């Protein structure tokens, strides 16, 4: 189809135009139309946007992040036992387009915002480490709550910079959630126990139907293998496990493939979850009449979160646990509840 390629246009705030990230972006996309803007919110939050239509040709917006730079994590994301759990938003939105993703309910725009004042954000993280509530424990920072930062690594190598930052900052543990297959940037880096790569894995049928633009399962597995074998901690995330006719067959094949390729002993931990989304985001998405069949099912409404029924949750839990039985220490498996 003849839609303009992603990043055909770069909208850049005047105050960001001389930043390193802007310069890198202009170099990476020499044919992009550069449009100077005053305030990114005037384009990112403008009226009359359609998230899914903008996904046909996603634009890049470069802006200066205003405070707050760091946020306490919400209940929707798993903390896996970390008491000081925060996230920051170096990027808003994602180059992938997963149909179950809350971002389409969180933002009216599908365009990707990259914040250029990374030094200020990192300073705020350092400050938060000093002020953390549980000083005996490190601070866990999720970098990819509102994006898949690693998926952008061949466009803007931000993940590598954040890894350097974590390695040079005491009491900081960083989680990078991803579905990407991009690991080449890390081949030359010394593995760090302070960085937790959390790879979301799904059967190919799910990837092809719901996780648009993401790498297929085998590509993700190959990336995990390389990273795990190099000595980086890796979390496997089966989240969300979706329920549909014959779902067990697809997931069984996926678990088998993972068991035969990735050593369970080397895995940091495993998280498992089902479809869930805050009522607000769900309703906002539903209003746009999305094509995805995920928004036309009957869900339970539990504490303002749309999710599957308790029985379905138990079924997924029992099934996943049985599949992972003997793969790794049971204590390493966490289920979102």
């Amino acid at each position: 189809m003849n839609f303009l390629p992603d990043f055909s246009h770069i909208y850049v705030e005047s105050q960001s135009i001389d930043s390193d990230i802007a310069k890198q972006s202009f170099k990476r996309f020499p044919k992009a139309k550069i449009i100077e803007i005053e305030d990114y919110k005037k384009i990112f939050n403008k009226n009359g946007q359609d998230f899914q239509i903008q996904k046909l040709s996603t634009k890049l917006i470069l802006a200066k992040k205003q405070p707050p730079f760091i946020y306490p994590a919400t209940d929707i994301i798993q903390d896996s036992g970390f008491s000081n759990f925060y996230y920051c938003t170096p990027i808003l939105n994602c180059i992938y387009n997963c149909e179950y993703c809350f971002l389409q309910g969180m933002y009216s725009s599908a365009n990707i915002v990259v914040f250029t004042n990374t030094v200020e954000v990192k300073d705020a993280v350092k400050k938060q480490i000093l002020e953390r509530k549980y000083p005996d424990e490190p601070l866990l920072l999720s970098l990819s709550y509102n994006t898949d930062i690693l998926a952008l690594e061949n466009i803007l190598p931000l993940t590598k910079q954040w890894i350097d930052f974590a390695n040079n900052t005491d009491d900081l543990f960083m989680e990078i959630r991803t579905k990407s297959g991009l690991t080449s940037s890390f081949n030359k880096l010394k593995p760090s126990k302070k960085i937790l790569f959390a790879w979301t894995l799904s059967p190919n049928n799910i990837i092809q139907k719901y996780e648009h633009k993401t790498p297929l399962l085998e590509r993700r597995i190959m990336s995990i293998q390389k990273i795990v074998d190099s000595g980086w901690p890796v979390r496997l995330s089966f989240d969300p496990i979706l329920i549909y006719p014959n779902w067990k067959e697809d997931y069984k094949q996926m678990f088998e493939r993972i068991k035969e390729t990735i050593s369970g002993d080397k895995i940091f931990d495993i998280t498992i979850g089902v479809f869930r989304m805050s009522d607000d985001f769900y309703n906002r998405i539903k209003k746009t009449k999305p094509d995805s069949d995920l928004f036309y099912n009957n869900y339970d409404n539990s504490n303002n979160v749309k999710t599957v029924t308790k029985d379905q949750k138990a079924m997924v839990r029992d099934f996943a646990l049985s599949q992972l039985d003997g793969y790794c220490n049971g204590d390493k498996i966490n289920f979102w509840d």
Partner: protein
Amino acid sequence: MKFVFLTALKTEAKALIKEYDLKKSKNNSFFNNNHFSLFITGMGKEQTLKNISHFLSFYKDLDETIAINIGIAGGNPKTTSLEDCYLINKIKNETNNDVFYPDVLIEHNWEERSLITTKKAIEVPSTSYPNIVDMEASHIYASLIKHLPSHRLVFLKIISDHMDIQDWKKIDVDHLITKNIPAIKKWLNKEEWKFLKQRRILSNDETKLIIKYFNRIRLTISQQHQLIEILENYKKRNNALPVLSKHFKYVPKLKADRDKIFQGLKNEFSS
């Protein structure tokens, strides 16, 4: 997909009316022929706002319409060429500093420029106007964005002068538009436009029929909304609506009877 051209002047409309064989309708300044139509907005803020409001009062196909503002405009001599057509990617209202960014999604062969909508015609080039100036675009965007999404608002400007015009009558507007019509026509023939339609679960005919049934049993607005959502879910899950006629034969006389029918429908189609 439907396309409506919006021009400020009759002379800008002439070539488009001829090319698309548009017929004058009973509505003032409106011409149409199947999927293409044209509306003359008039010049400047007051006329544009008043006439767009009139256009919105009778035009019924907004869900599947692309609005294209085509017109002549002044261009900065350093950044534009006379007679060339430009696609606008940023519109600024000089008077109130509002800025708009139409989504640019479909490939095209024009150069893109930003535009400033001014109150008066600009007759001396200056750095304050680095690209293109006109007198309507920001008013059209501001009026239509309440009714059409940003990706269905398109602004094409053909450079008639380099902000140095002495005698407006000397501009051959018809020639300027005619010269650029082949490229515009080719662009509008692209398949991609059809992806920009409003997404709907229920077709117009289905919605009309359902509303007719709802009115027959006098459902409340809240009940109607709930049932429409349930029926949309049903259609998405089953690829078709259920047979509804049998459920709406009995006309209830009491609220309690109506509520009972409503609850029955809810239970039947929710599962």
